């Protein structure tokens, strides 16, 4: 495991996301309304929808395919849906975002 530099914090849109690719891995980094960052595996546990394309609300994202709601902190599906997507650690140093992979 190591910290990898991703991008400048401004490059991740507020209430939006960026997709990052590392080898075979696709990860979505989100910025909430409060400016908090989260990273999860970019696959909904339901039918592998790109979570990076979903609407961000509170600390959650709603999958664009079938509206599952995923908690960005835990990666877990909310409500009556069951499933979990992997989460990743992030840190910010000098306005640069780093991910632990």
């Amino acid at each position: 495991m190591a910290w990898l530099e991703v991008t400048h914090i401004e490059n991740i849109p507020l209430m939006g996301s960026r997709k990052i690719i590392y080898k075979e891995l696709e990860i979505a980094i989100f910025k909430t309304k409060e400016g908090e960052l989260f990273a999860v595996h970019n696959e909904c546990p339901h039918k592998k929808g790109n979570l990076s394309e979903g609407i961000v609300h509170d600390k959650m994202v709603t999958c664009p395919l079938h509206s599952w709601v995923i908690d960005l902190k835990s990666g877990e599906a909310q409500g009556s849906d069951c499933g979990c997507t992997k989460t990743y650690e992030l840190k910010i140093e000098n306005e640069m975002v780093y991910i632990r992979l």
Partner: protein
Amino acid sequence: MKEKLIVIGNGMSALRTVEEILSHNKNKYQITIFGEEPHVNYNRIMLSYLLSGEKTFEDTIINHEHWYDENSVMLYRNNKILYIDKEKKKVVCSLNQSYDYDKLIIATGSKPFIPQTKGTQLQNVIGFRTKADVDTILQTISKDKTAVVVGGGLLGLEAAYGIAQHGVKTILVHRSSNLMSQQLDATAGKLLQKNLEQYGIEFRLNQTIEEIKGDDEVQAVKFSNGEEVESNLVVFATGITPNIEIAKNSDIATNKGILVDDFLQTHAENIYAIGECCEHDGNTYGLVAPLFEQAKELAKKIADVPTTGYKGSITSTRLKVSGVDLFSAGDYLGDMTTEELILLDAKAGVYKKLVLFEDRIIGVVLYGDTADASWYLKLLKEETNIADLRAKLLYGKAGLGDAGHGGNDVNAMSDDEEVCGCNGVCKGDIVMAIKTNDLKTLGEVKACTKAGASCGSCLGLVEQILVNTLGDEYQAKEEGICSCCEVGHKEIKTCIDNNEFDNVYEVFKKLNWKTKDGCSKCRPAVNYYLLVKYNDNKYKNDRRSALVNDRVFANIQKDGTYSVVPRIWGGLTSPKELKDIAEIAVKYDVPTVKFTGGQRLDMLGVKKEQLEPMWKDLNDCGFVSGQAYAKGLRTVKTCVGNQWCRFGTQDSMQMGIDIEKLTWGSWTPHKFKIAVSGCPRNCAEATIKDIGVIGVDSGWEIHIAGNGGIKVRVTDFFCKVATDEELFFYIKAIMQFYREDAYYLERTAHWVERVGLEYVKEALLKDKSKAQYYVERFEESQKYAQVDPWQESINSGFTKEFEPIVLAPKEEF
């Protein structure tokens, strides 16, 4: 310190209020409940099933002991409050102990009303209100004795049915000539009587009880016609009377019931009353739905959530006797000023009566076929103008050729029949979920089973199942549009109309959203309503409140790639355009190219990062976005028309191009499709579009609200125009009226079915100046909306975020 809330009464309205309070604020109050009965809160409506043996007592419990524990609600059973000391804010119980309160709710319900008759003091003369009454009945009845039930109302019939189910001879005495005369007219009453006679109930109509004879216990009953029968049990179900003893003892104003205002407050400070014991605006209620409506408002008041107060209820009734389908609501009798629509098939045992006043349903009686009960009730509550449905109204929703969820009778569905195609939920799953999880609202069923949670086209069916499963416990109401709020589309729209907002979050604040940011359901809706009010020049369309397709101007596919559809005006293209598209498709290695149903070319399988360069190339060739993703005009489909066709009467191709240039751009509540056919042969299939234009010799016919979706709905004829100018005028007016009047994600077909065609016609055809208003509003919106979103998002730099961030693999040693 928590405030002290005391609730006198442990019945359904008391507990529903407490549940609602807890849902608003778990920590505000220390709650104590006093109940006279030795039980936890059970479902009094189910007593008839308990009596007939179709359910056990356990089945009827709503709040189990652990519920009280988990919610830290203190329950004193077998404990009657005698007196309220308003000065000292204390209540005193039968054990002479006193308890302090800050807020007090009286929910003492009602008592059976037993008319003054000789012999009512005897043992085994009882009411039918409590578990104890049911126990007495079950212990007393025996096959060689006759039971007498007095009162031919809902409760009396249920009691008689329950007793007769045990094989006991049961006589029902009723003072008028019709059963359920409070809810049914004479015809339905007779059908019901015939039906119940099959269960072995004997009727004595136009009779009362003269005398009940016996020493200690009942031995015989004498009727007013002199007939005397041997009997060991008399059940009085001759109505209820509000239990207001405590208010009287405590000097709180009463009439029939304890007087309350719109916020359920009594004339005494900090003291509220709810349910059967209270009287609001001259009415007392004995059915459960109104009580729940009151509970909701009272809970808001107590929990300090803003509320507009309780405004009275329209009640509806269902009889819970297996094998008898009966429903009534509103003013079912009518008078000189009303009209009636009646369908009667005595042999099949079907009777339907709708009472109309000024083209609105004001009363409903259904017997034998109650499948459309919820639909009629909705039309009644929403005061929908039914003038254009009138001819088919009695045949029910299925008779309309509706646009989404009619045509299915849930009673006829088997448990394994699929209701929600999106989420694969069957009828049996839903019924089971409602029963085991005690679900009460459409929202709860949606959340628990996922039925109707996706496309929503089955919600009507789900609602019917809910109505059938719950009976009169079901409360139809406008639900919050999502779990973030308790307001429906109507309220949100009104609020936006009457106030000024800069963004969706200000709306959330004003309407007391439970979440800070909203969710993927409410944010796009509120964003849309703001956009329609202010137009693109005065409101910045919030990208982050748009669903993916509307945000990135392409349609997301199951694998996360997108489809790209350039606009091909009116479906007419040229060799040069086709060549350009072909070259671009080759350049970007597009895996699938397909003609769409709307006469466009769809390039499927495009990666997100390819969108920007592809759009650039398309723009350079003169293409703009075909907006195949948009909640806005998608396509105008055309037939060949009189330029080539030997049957064509009008130039449909040119008209299609003109209409497309006129209407593309502005967002609409849902996608919007138009088609133009050059003659009534209608090769452009215009009669299943949102607007269908059909050329005739003398001009154009305009048809609206068609849909080719899950359930096909053919358009309604709107009007005929002679000139192209008039055609453009009405298309603009219709689109703008739809934009402003419909709810978000409501197609024209559903919208017109909800509001009625007459309503749309009245708004646009009656008075040309009104249509002119909408035309001008549409033109104003189009000024700022007709911007190619592809070019705009490239120019504004938005497409930068489409590019993935690729991290270089770290060397691993």
